[in-house]
């Protein structure tokens, strides 16, 4: 952050405003990504979380700096909420050397050692056992840390979900399994992918305590996450948190959306987490038009800055192509 940088966690702003701000940041960032995708600045697969911002914005701040995060290919929001700089994320999407994965990962593979952000995994379910292992390391090294693992409800069909929950439960490891249930895995609706659509029941079959929350209500998400993370940190073993949410946009940029109706999407849009939180804060008198305008301008500036940074970034020299296939100095 240079001159355009903004004090994102201004103490003057209430928690509710900070949550709103984070959601707006994510939304704006991703809307910008969509635009940059059509301009071919960003390539490959691009998965936006528009509509689901309350999950990343609500859960992530309940973690400590020493905690770890494992996410999916739909992880811009988590990366931003974790505090990875928008510049580094945007540069990554541009494939630039200044990107948080040096341009090697792209949208689906954001990584950041400083904030213990372990990706950005594009294999559905692939991150779950990694989270279990991170938590195992914490346990063996007697560190009071939590690993938060985000995944979609589609991942629950993968065998590795079950293996991972069982292992974590058997060994009582400090993992928060956070399921973003947006009702679809690409075009496959939950009830065509699971014989039991009550996902908490599935988790409970491993004796993992569960909680389900309205994933469109960012304050509810934050509260549930805070309480659940505390339980995990206190040695309560893994917990499963279902956030019931919805993806407003297509699965990726190549999705004709044949599998759901416009009406369904519109109905859910009436529960837009940003609109809901704005309305609540207005009701509470915490925000007014002026503040909303201010937030918007701050964030827009931040994103413009990130785009400019990414544009100005450099290309990793082709000679370095095979660098990092193995660790440096190995």
């Amino acid at each position, binding site marked *: 952050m240079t001159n355009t940088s903004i004090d994102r966690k201004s103490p003057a702003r209430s928690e509710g405003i900070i949550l709103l701000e984070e959601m707006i940041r994510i939304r704006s960032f991703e809307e910008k990504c969509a635009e940059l995708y059509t301009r071919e600045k960003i390539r490959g697969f691009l998965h936006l979380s528009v509509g689901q911002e309350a999950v990343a914005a609500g859960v992530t701040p309940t973690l400590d700096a020493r905690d770890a995060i494992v996410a999916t290919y739909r992880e811009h929001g988590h990366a931003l909420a974790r505090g990875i700089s928008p510049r580094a994320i945007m540069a990554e999407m541009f494939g630039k050397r200044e990107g948080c994965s040096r341009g090697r990962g792209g949208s689906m593979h954001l990584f950041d050692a400083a904030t213990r952000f372990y990706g950005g995994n594009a294999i559905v379910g692939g991150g779950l056992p990694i989270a279990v292992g991170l938590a195992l390391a914490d346990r063996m090294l007697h560190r009071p840390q939590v690993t938060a693992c985000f995944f979609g409800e589609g991942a629950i069909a993968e065998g590795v979900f079950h293996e991972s929950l069982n292992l974590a439960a058997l060994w009582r490891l400090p993992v928060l399994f956070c399921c973003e249930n947006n009702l679809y895995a690409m075009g496959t609706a939950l009830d065509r*992918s699971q014989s039991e659509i009550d996902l908490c029941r599935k988790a409970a079959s491993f004796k993992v305590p569960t909680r389900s929350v309205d994933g469109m209500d960012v304050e509810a998400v934050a509260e549930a996450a805070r309480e659940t993370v505390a339980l995990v940190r206190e040695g309560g073993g893994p917990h499963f948190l279902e956030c019931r949410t919805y993806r407003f946009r297509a699965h990726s940029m190549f999705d004709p959306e044949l599998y759901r109706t416009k009406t369904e999407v519109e109905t859910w849009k009436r529960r837009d987490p940003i609109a809901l939180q704005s309305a609540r804060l207005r009701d509470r008198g915490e925000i007014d038009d002026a503040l909303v305008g201010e937030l918007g301008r701050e964030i827009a500036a931040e994103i413009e800055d990130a785009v400019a940074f990414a544009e100005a970034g450099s*290309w990793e020299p082709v000679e370095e192509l095979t660098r990092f296939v193995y660790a440096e100095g190995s």
Partner: protein
Amino acid sequence: MTFGTATAIGTRRTTYRGAIREALREALARDDRVFLMGEDVGRYGGCFAVSQGLLEEFGPERVRDTPLSESAFVGAGIGAALGGMRPIVEIMTVNFSLLALDQIVNNAATLCHMSGGQFPVPLVIRMTTGAGRQLAAQHSHSLEGWYAHVPGLKILTPGTLEDARGMLWPALEDPDPVLIFEHGGLYGMEGELALDTGAVSIDRAAIRRPGEDVTLIAFGGMLGPALTAAERLESDGIGAEVVDLRRLRPLDETTILDSVQRTRRAVVIDEGWRSGGISAEILSRIVEGAFYDLDAPPRRVCSAEVPMPYARHLEQAALPQVEGIVSATRDLMARHG
């Protein structure tokens, strides 16, 4: 089974994607035992839009969306094949096939042999392979050559519209498990196809371009670059023959050796990683079968040994390019005999 021969009854414009869809439609229409199963093959219309429209045409029993359970639905394909069906299982991308590898290698490839011939597995598995679309390290592998190591499997790699259209039916007629690798970069490839194009023979490699001075051996996504390289070499006065392997297991060694014995020089082009890739097998077959005919050591042009990077310039640098093929070939021609 009769094979479509390109009689002059006219052609139509289509794509690799469209040709595969047509093959699927034909198979579903022709044989009640055939069904298509995989993630998002139905309502979504196929991850790469290959199966679009088939659900509407054949219904959800025969165009069957599955949950994200690669191991179970590939295994279910094996079981359904044993039970008398002719399943076509689609795995979205070759990387995800690793989640089903136990079923493919430990079951599909062994059951016929382990059972003393009682239980062949007439299963077709289709999947997308290859890089070039900036999908990075978990969506860009080229593992068809790797799969070709496994006895009990047959491996097809359509690189032309004809093969995209024609390989499915013989694969379904085959009593053994056949894996078809569709190159993701080819789905949009357009061209003319004879109106009556149907099944093709999958027994032999094809000489896609005759030449006398050197044999370029390629398949799948590398066939195009190999042909382009051959054209460029032409202007240097080098006559490059292009062999399209088409099937990686079993390999058609005869066609390879015949060509190399004539040209006395060979370059193998493979999008897979070099070390231990199918390119190594081709080199070995050439050396074992035609050592004394060679004027120079055969060459390989392969992908750099790196999990595919996202950035376009790095990805392109990792992949075999026309220039690389041309310069390797020129270099080879300059070697003494």
